[in-house]
């Protein structure tokens, strides 16, 4: 029992390395927020491309569906390795192949790219579910009033769809946040990478445990928020329930 506590919960180890671990966690948060925001946007774009109507857009729909299927089917770790290992050798401007935007290292941006590519595909599916959950009469009503497909999507369908999928999107964001640790394998000093370095030197895992605790500080409230949003959304459709203010 003592071994368990000293290996995983050694408070002196934790306090000794708190600053390093915390710095790593800050990188984790930055990576999560930037990649999360981009994936939210990219996913929405993909889902809208997938919904374009009519025969002329058939190729667009086909390519979009293929993209979504492919990147949902490849492990994120492999995407990270593919990008970080070879992007620098491609005949593109250095600003893209070896990015150092906002003073962050290239490994940070490789991580952002991989996470956006992969989670954009996941989130596109979430948006799609939301768009399909909006009754068809909404699109018909908007079109019958003279709105184009794009106007109807923007003003009528997407606002309703997004409201329906805020909770599942947050779930995907939690998953994305945890998956940022995979970017540690290309030597980005995010929290897991930092914790692992300390573990290797100290033969003690407490710093990693500390990193895990930092994750929980963020992910647990988010998970509760998701639950709350879901029950709120359900109560909107429960007969006799008090009306819930729009989010």
């Amino acid at each position, binding site marked *: 029992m003592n071994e368990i506590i000293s290996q995983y919960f050694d408070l002196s180890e934790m306090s000794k390395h708190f600053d390093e671990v915390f710095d790593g966690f800050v990188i984790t948060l930055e990576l999560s927020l930037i990649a999360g925001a981009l994936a939210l946007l990219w996913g929405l774009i993909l889902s809208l491309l997938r919904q374009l109507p*009519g025969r*002329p857009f058939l190729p667009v729909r086909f390519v979009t569906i293929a993209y979504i299927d492919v990147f949902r089917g490849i492990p994120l770790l492999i995407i990270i390795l593919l990008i970080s290992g070879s992007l620098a050798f491609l005949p593109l401007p250095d600003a893209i192949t070896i990015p150092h935007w906002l003073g962050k290292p290239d490994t940070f941006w490789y991580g952002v790219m991989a996470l956006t590519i992969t989670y954009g595909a996941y989130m596109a599916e979430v948006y799609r579910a939301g768009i399909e959950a909006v*009754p068809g009469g909404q699109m018909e*009503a908007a079109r*019958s009033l003279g*709105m184009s497909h794009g106007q109807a999507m923007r003003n009528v369908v997407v606002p309703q769809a997004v*409201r329906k999928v805020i909770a599942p999107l947050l779930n995907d964001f939690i998953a994305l946040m945890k998956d940022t640790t995979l970017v540690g394998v290309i030597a980005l000093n995010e929290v897991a990478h930092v914790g692992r370095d300390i573990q290797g030197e100290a033969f003690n895992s407490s710093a990693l445990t500390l990193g895990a605790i930092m994750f929980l500080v963020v992910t647990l409230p988010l998970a509760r928020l998701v639950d709350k949003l879901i029950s709120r959304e359900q109560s909107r459709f429960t007969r006799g329930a008090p*009306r819930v203010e729009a989010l």
Partner: protein
Amino acid sequence: MQVSGGGAMLRLENVHKRFGQLEVLRGINLDVRRGEVVCILGPSGSGKSTLLRCVNLLEPPEEGEIFLEDKDICRGAGTPSGEGGWQLDFVRQRVGIVFQQFNLFPQKTALENVTLAPEKVLKRSREEARAKGTALLERVGLADKLGEYPDRLSGGQQQRVAIARALAMDPHVMLFDEVTSALDPELVKEVLDVLRKLASEGMTMLVVTHEMGFAREVGDKVVFMDEGVIVEQGKPADVLDNPREERTKRFLGLVLER
């Protein structure tokens, strides 16, 4: 531009509509004059709603022509040209439709429901759209509900908002697709009263309905449809009281003995 119709507001010539194997409309011919109120009756599945949805090209016909104000709005029906072959903008800015299920935008207030399309499609200023929308909602008796969301309104109130929303686009023709069928009986009258008022103001209207009393009182013409064709049409008194066709008699017998 192909010209035909001889001054009719709306003219359907041999309109066919299929959903896969199912032929829902099998050659519809219909003339609607300016200011005329045409009530369309018939059993469910007879193609009444599909007919309305063809007229505003929500369901473009595969065959036949539809003339709106003498303009052929679906020339080349049945060609795989997509929406490009149809006069969508021309139609949607002249034809308003009100649905059985209201289809109000739930995230918008009553007034916002009415002002959205005029602002986005007709590019009216916010002030102008709001002034007009307010006037329209007053006209349908909802002056005190401008800021309410649809889920706070009764079915009859929602349907009146939907009518105001369609009128906000200054339509020349209004289509009503069983607009009272989803309402509690005591709410039907408030919606029919709005339709009566519109008719008396000279609006051209196609009304799919099961309200025989309304058809008799307000209709200039009654059309009876069954199995995708118009079985009989004429003045309300003729069709409703002295139907010539056996199918019309059977239908009216079933409806009136309720």
